């Protein structure tokens, strides 16, 4: 049941719907919280750990996208500790796979790049893993490049929740985690993919892209996914 609660985000008093998450309420009130795995319209999973916020009374950090607001909640989104963790998380994204902006289709229009600029990352302090990653070009229209994937799972959720095709899934754990098509078979041989391209629009980096474009030409519209889901709610 919907109830109204009073919460405080960065000392700002806000009356909010108790069904909403901290992230939703913050965005409605123009308070910026960084995210990568959140895409409005898709189920939130708290995968990227960028939206961590402090809640007064707890030493733990909470992911704003999966924590619902509650009466008298006191939220801090911009402490030094939060900023430090955001910077660390961003650097680890870059160190984990092979993000070569200079040769990437998404160069200049990449959510990961923009994240780096937002947290002020001028260098990566951690050793790069340089993993050998697969590039799946078997699909007639699209490419899946594991080098550029940050495992946010937006493609998986867009495929399952919006298109209903369930082509994508996740395999493995930790740094060996990989997004897979069907049962880890080539994308071009998929029996579930409808080639709708929603995964491409949902992807925040250059991991999923269309063969018709080249370096720096990526023009993604993740808001398409949000719009689709909003329109489906309309009663005609």
């Amino acid at each position, binding site marked *: 049941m919907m109830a109204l609660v009073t919460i405080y985000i960065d000392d700002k008093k806000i009356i909010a719907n108790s069904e909403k998450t901290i992230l939703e309420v913050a965005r409605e009130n123009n308070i910026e919280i960084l995210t990568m795995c959140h895409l409005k319209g898709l189920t939130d999973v708290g995968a990227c750990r960028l939206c961590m916020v402090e809640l007064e009374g707890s030493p733990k950090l909470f992911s704003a996208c999966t924590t619902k607001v509650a009466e008298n909640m006191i939220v801090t989104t911009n402490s030094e500790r939060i900023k430090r963790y955001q910077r660390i998380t961003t650097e680890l994204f*870059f160190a984990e796979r*092979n993000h*070569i*902006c*200079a*040769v*990437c289709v998404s*160069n*200049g229009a990449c959510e990961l*790049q923009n994240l*780096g*600029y937002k947290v*002020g*990352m*001028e*260098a*990566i*302090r951690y*050793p*790069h893993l*340089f*993993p*050998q*990653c697969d590039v799946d070009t078997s699909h007639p229209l699209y490419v899946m490049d594991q080098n550029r994937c940050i495992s946010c799972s937006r493609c998986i959720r867009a495929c399952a929740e919006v298109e209903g095709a369930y082509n994508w899934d996740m395999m493995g754990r930790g740094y060996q985690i990989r997004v897979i098509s069907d049962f880890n078979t080539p994308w071009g041989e998929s029996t579930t993919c409808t080639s709708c391209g929603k995964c491409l629009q949902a992807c925040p980096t250059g991991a999923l892209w269309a063969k018709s474009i080249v370096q*720096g030409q990526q023009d993604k519209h993740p808001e398409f996914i949000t719009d689709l889901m909003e329109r489906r709610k309309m009663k005609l």
Partner: protein
Amino acid sequence: MNKKKLATVWLGGCSGCHMSLLDIDERILDVAKLADIVKSPVVDGKDFPEVDIALVEGSVTSDEHLAELLHIRKNTKTLIAFGDCAAMTNVTGMRNYFDLKDVFETSYVNSISNDQEGEVPDNPYLLRLHDKVLPLQECVPVDFVIPGCPPNADTIFYVLFEFLNDRTPNLSEAKKLKYG
């Protein structure tokens, strides 16, 4: 006023960062008022002398680069990692996903233009490639980083001008961060 000494170095990179440095155009005169460029691919001079500021382009790919970088570090007050290769290995580091042996054979033996007749060079006077290409900060402490492939001329001039006037630039505040 004492003029500062400035050096620019080209390690494992494509020289694109140096091209971008030349793109500061007539502002090089403002730099020249405050500093002498004492060592650079674009000026004469064999040995790397003691300098105030060194812009180091490219990553560390070989024993020669590492020795050069250690020498530069010893003789430089402010060492600046210049460009994406220096900061995060970038394109130069793309061979890190493969065995060095495979990389050599792909380039020198199996490349189509070699007609299968090429061989991997092993002259003792040649530099020795390291197994992995490393960014500068994994080899020596780095004082400042200018990312970008290449960095914008405006960004380069901003950083140089700040350091030459004894100020510390802040790329994030100046909204000049760029990768790729």
